[in-house]
């Protein structure tokens, strides 16, 4: 029997099963090994899947052989093949290299649990991305979220505030998921189906009845919560600050991206252009909050003393960019969102890894502890520097490409104030990044701060630099991602009536 036709299912099942298995082995090393193997395998599978999508077009996999709409199907096109590869790729980089930081930050008897949770979380996110069924989506979201709450709480051995952060995350996450559930209920009520493709077809015929509109409202607000879109972003700042380093790195680079992916899926594929942008003012709603997110998130980032918190607020702003692009409702905007999605995942993952290295060596990641680390930890510092520049969107990083698309998209739509907001946002990014770099490179340790220890283990800076390499590649080679992104954006925007 050949496994090739089963690849879409395996992408979800491998980490899921691996997570379950790891939960049963009570051995830290073995757990790490299995988790690493599983994550790398999953990544390979997603790559294979992406190759297949590129060759064949949309890949549909009926779970258990039940055809849609009765059965649950996995449906992979260019867009979610990209996101799948991203999520699995980040996991494949972060999980195998997380051993040192996990050893430092998580109690020894919890290592197996840790890896099990991580894999379950990844499985949840992959499932969310791959599924073609709306209710299935809700369940998988909750799988990834529940594991994420637990993972955040694991940070308590370093700082008990992880617990309160986790609790807040749980409350907000659950409310968000519940809103999504209510919204799906209304849509189901109106269409009688939960298959996304099917739902899309039927919604197009309904022309926005009250039920449909209520459903759309619940879905969009629920997803905003899940994406941590301003003004419901507060949970993210806390969770990212206190979670174990590798968890933050993984979640910052994947969880919100999956949220954005789902939003794209709902807004473009399921609701369609007319329902989203003509009947409902989703574009205005999202644009307004995206702009606010960019400005307020960046301003808050400028104020922060703790670098992880700074990066978390920067994520709030970056999510603003992502949402802004998708709310523009054009191929340019969507391309911007997709490039930014990739770039921000790479950059933010790398930055949290580098900050993790500092935590590993210095015991914390406030400005105080980062002072002058460039002398002793040049590679970590380099990762912070390049990552910071990527956040700003300096030319030759992926961030610039996405910024370009977003500004062009806004101008194309005649929304020059939005373009200005995008640019002002990157200016504010300059402010917090340069402040950080000034401390890292030009700070004088010894008088105000502890003398830095040596360079952190390679398992911190090597993956960080690898990810940044990806960001730079994204920035200098339009061809690298251009094909996939253009296909995805074209399919979505072109699919609109």
């Amino acid at each position: 029997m050949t496994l090739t036709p089963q690849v879409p299912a395996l992408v979800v099942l491998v980490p899921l099963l691996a997570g379950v298995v790891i939960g049963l082995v009570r051995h830290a090393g073995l757990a790490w090994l299995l988790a690493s193997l599983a994550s790398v395998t999953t990544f390979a599978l997603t790559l294979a899947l992406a190759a297949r999508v590129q060759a064949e077009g949309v890949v549909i996999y009926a779970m258990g052989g039940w055809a849609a709409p009765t059965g649950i199907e996995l449906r992979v096109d260019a867009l979610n093949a990209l996101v799948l590869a991203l999520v699995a790729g980040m996991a494949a980089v972060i999980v195998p290299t997380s051993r040192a930081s996990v050893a430092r930050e998580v109690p020894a008897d919890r290592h197996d649990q840790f890896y099990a949770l991580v894999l379950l979380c990844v499985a949840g996110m992959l499932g969310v991305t791959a599924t073609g069924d709306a209710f299935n989506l809700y369940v998988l979201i909750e799988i990834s979220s529940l594991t994420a709450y637990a993972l955040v709480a694991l940070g308590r051995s370093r700082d008990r505030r992880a617990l309160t952060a986790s609790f807040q995350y749980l409350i907000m996450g659950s409310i968000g998921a519940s809103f999504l559930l209510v919204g799906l209920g209304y849509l189901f009520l109106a269409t009688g189906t939960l298959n996304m493709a099917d739902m899309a077809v039927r919604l197009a015929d309904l022309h926005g009845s009250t039920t449909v509109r209520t459903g759309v409202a619940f879905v969009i607000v629920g997803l905003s919560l899940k994406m941590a879109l301003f003004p419901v972003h507060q949970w993210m700042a806390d969770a990212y600050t206190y979670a174990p380093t590798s968890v933050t790195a993984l979640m910052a680079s994947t969880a919100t991206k999956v949220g954005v992916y789902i939003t794209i899926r709902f807004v473009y594929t399921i609701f369609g252009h007319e329902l989203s942008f003509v009947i409902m003012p989703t574009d205005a709603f999202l644009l307004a909050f995206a702009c606010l997110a960019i400005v307020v998130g960046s301003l808050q980032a400028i104020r922060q003393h703790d670098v992880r918190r700074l990066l978390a607020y920067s994520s709030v702003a970056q999510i603003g960019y992502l949402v802004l692009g998708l709310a523009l409702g054009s191929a340019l905007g969507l391309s911007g969102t997709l490039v930014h999605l990739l770039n921000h995942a790479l950059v933010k993952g790398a930055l949290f890894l580098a900050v993790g290295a500092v935590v590993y060596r210095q015991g914390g990641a406030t400005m105080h502890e980062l002072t002058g680390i460039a002398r002793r930890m040049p590679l970590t510092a380099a990762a912070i520097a390049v990552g910071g520049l990527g956040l700003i969107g300096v030319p030759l990083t992926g961030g610039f490409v996405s910024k370009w698309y977003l500004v062009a998209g806004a101008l194309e739509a005649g929304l020059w104030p939005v373009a200005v907001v995008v640019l002002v946002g990157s200016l504010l990014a300059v402010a917090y990044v340069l402040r950080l770099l000034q401390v890292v490179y030009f700070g004088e340790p010894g008088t105000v701060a502890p003398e830095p220890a040596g360079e952190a283990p390679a398992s911190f800076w090597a993956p960080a630099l690898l990810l940044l390499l990806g960001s730079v590649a994204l920035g200098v080679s339009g061809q690298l991602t251009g094909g996939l992104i253009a296909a995805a954006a074209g399919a979505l925007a072109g699919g609109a009536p």
Partner: protein
Amino acid sequence: MSLLATGLFNLLNYWVYVSLMMIGLYAVIAKTNLVKKVIGLSLFQTGIFIFYISMGVVSGATTPITWTDAERLRLGLSRVEVAPERAAAALAAVEEDGLDAARAALGPLAPADAARLDELLARPYTNPLPHVLILTAIVVSVSTMAVALAIVMEIKAAYGTIESDEIVTAELETARAARS
């Protein structure tokens, strides 16, 4: 008055679900006790369950079990006064030509019986899908509760309290101590 009554009673299930959600959210917002917050969350989710369950209900519908026409007719005949041979003929006809032919074969009935039979034969079944879904959602909700309560326990262990304002005070003091 009648409009209000219609609105109130016809949409009763919605009112219930919305009320439950609001009560739950209120608890989440207003209560300082973390367990109460969790309970509020649970109430909130329960409201959603009601919404889903009521959504699948069709008044007067049968249970959502797959019936053949013959089985349905047999059930209907058991509820009305009808001659056995006509019943047999109808059952034969339904096998051959479907319900309409069977109804014709049955011949005239007492008006009350006729209406009852027609109602029985035409009655839809309730949609089972929402109920199935909500089973899953309940599982999710229970898991959420479990995780939430676990975290609350940990908070109690770490802070010695589950009152949010006391936790804040404790944190503030820690921060102040760290600063000085």
